């Protein structure tokens, strides 16, 4: 996983609430057995006018011009600005894979669905929860200013606007540590293998039926 430090990036506003993971990456793309290559199909149904299928070359597909990702001013955006309950629905990790593969590294919203929120961290994406009023302000500024950029600093936990206004955000120390250092969570956990083994032995003694199949 890539280490995350600071992002000063172009903002793309997605002005709808309850964006579900089916919308982020439609189910036909779940058939892939790989982790990468989902970026071109991000928001496939909203983005293209034709039905998308895995393996399609997206460069020649007809675009839905009104969709934000297709507007020239948002090309190369790294920060996705969203509304409430972003990432709801299916637990598919293909959603953050597609978002990351497309090039977004930060998502800002008033609220996120649980599983999606956790999946972001595991894929080097920083999901930031800001109060609704702050998000509304960012939407308004973004609409009014072409080339609108935000400065996201994970170290100091701040989102800074071009005018210098800053919004603090929460992130757990563990997640921050992993993101800042690009750490593999499995390796970290296996440092505690001894404790896991000890727990397992106690658990087995107390509820042998959970392990009975191994007898």
């Amino acid at each position, binding site marked *: 996983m890539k280490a995350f430090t600071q992002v000063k990036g172009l903002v793309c506003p997605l002005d709808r609430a309850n964006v579900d993971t089916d919308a982020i990456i439609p189910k036909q793309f779940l058939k892939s057995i790989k982790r990468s290559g989902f970026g071109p199909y991000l928001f496939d149904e909203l983005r293209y006018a034709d039905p998308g299928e895995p393996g399609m070359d997206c460069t020649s597909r007809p675009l839905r011009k009104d969709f934000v990702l297709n507007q020239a001013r948002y090309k190369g955006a790294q920060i996705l600005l969203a509304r*409430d309950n972003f990432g709801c629905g*299916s637990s598919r990790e293909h959603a953050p894979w597609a978002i990351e593969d497309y090039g977004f590294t930060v998502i800002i919203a008033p609220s996120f669905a649980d599983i999606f929120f956790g999946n972001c961290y595991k894929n080097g994406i920083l999901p930031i929860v800001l109060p609704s009023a702050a998000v509304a302000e960012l939407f308004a500024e973004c609409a009014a200013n072409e080339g609108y950029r935000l400065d996201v600093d994970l170290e100091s936990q701040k989102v800074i606007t071009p005018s210098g206004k800053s919004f603090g955000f929460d992130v757990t120390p563990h997640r921050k540590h992993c993101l800042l250092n690009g750490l593999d969570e499995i390796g970290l956990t296996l440092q505690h293998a001894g404790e896991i083994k000890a727990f397992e032995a106690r658990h087995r003694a107390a509820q042998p039926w959970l392990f009975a199949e191994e007898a």
Partner: protein
Amino acid sequence: MAGKTLYDKLWESHVVREESDGTCLLYIDRHLMHEVTSAQAFEGMRLASRRAWRATSIVANPDHNTPTDHWDEGIKDPVSRLQVETLDANIKDFGALVYFPFKHANQGIIHVIGPENGTTLPGMTVVCGDSHTSTHGAFGALAHGIGTSEVEHVLATQTLVAKRSKRMLVRVEGQLGQEITAKDVALAIIGKIGTAGGTGYAIEFGGSAIRGLSLEGRMTLCNMAIEAGARAGLVAPDEKTAEYLRGRLYAPKGADWDKAVAYWNTLKSDHDAEFDAVVEFDAARIEPQVTWGTSPEQVLPIGARVPDPAKEADPQKRSGIERALQYMGLAAGTPLSGIKVDKVFIGSCTNSRIEDLRAAAAVARGRKKAAGVKLALVVPGSGIVKRQAEAEGLDKIFIAAGFEWREPGCSMCLAMNADRLEPGERCASTSNRNFEGRQGAGGRTHLVSPAMAAAAAVAGHFVDIRNSFGQESQA
């Protein structure tokens, strides 16, 4: 000090270690797997030369991509076939307690086969790379969906990095009406608290109406907990839970059984336990539910009319309703009971167990599918459910009524196989999600109970099951 909730007890009995900020390593007892969300996890394991920590915690089978007819012809779509064959190969390499390959007599939807083989037990932690893992909470197991990175983490370490959820009690007291099922209860709850109402919470369902539900009904309810935003749903185990599990393939036997049941009896919230939120429902007031929009919270009783966005003050919500009505091809003010359907789907991990098929068959018995309905599909949740239904003659009832009786799998719940809606088609579905395109691009889904779905197939449009097909009106 206040007592403990069921959730607290389950959580605390699985904490391996806890960091100062509350992040825990949680031990995982049961790891369920299907073909869609596991391949990349195994790929990661191989890349890091890791072996499974405890392969015998794994229960797996393909379900999303498997066809529901012409099994003799195999899986025709090469991409689907590759995904299923990849799971075959991964399980062969890494091992599992239970693996039912495509066409195995017990194969089915992973959330149906886990409990019916006794591999989901009270007091367990259960995870799967699938949001509807919440289903298993019906047994008093702490069960929730995880992402593919977490699937790999559990494979490699038998633990999950997690933080405690807040606890919500949804209490449903009283007697449910004659034709009211767990599905109606679930939809009514989501209609009230919203699809984000449970975000950050584990929901325990309690009250006399919940205790009155069978295990099948409790599974339907916990299955839909995720649609209310909660990662986990829970029902405290009781005699019904033990009765359901007794004698199942992997359920404890002999002396272990008695010990296990004694332990399961302790798995309930203490009288003085405190919840972070409590929501109450009067069972007697819950009516048959039908969703009208593109989110499970866009739901109303069958007697209602399609809402008018002009009456919604909140602009976000108003545009949400407008967009939903446009997608669904519905006009404000239309009575729900008049809406015609093109297809009917009875199945999915929400409603494909034997009790669901019995309820649908009771409506279909001696009746015929309406001429305007192109397809009424009945897809049992597993091979075991299918055989049980056939032993009871339910398949014959469905076939005589013009319904199709298929092989088990996820099928038209998410349309990864050949079963799907065509653009613009309207479906009465017993599944759990009515999102845009869920059952096929452009398809329009209305979520209902199995009896309501069967009734729509017979009438050709939604009807109030209590008026038209109630037990009294049954010849």
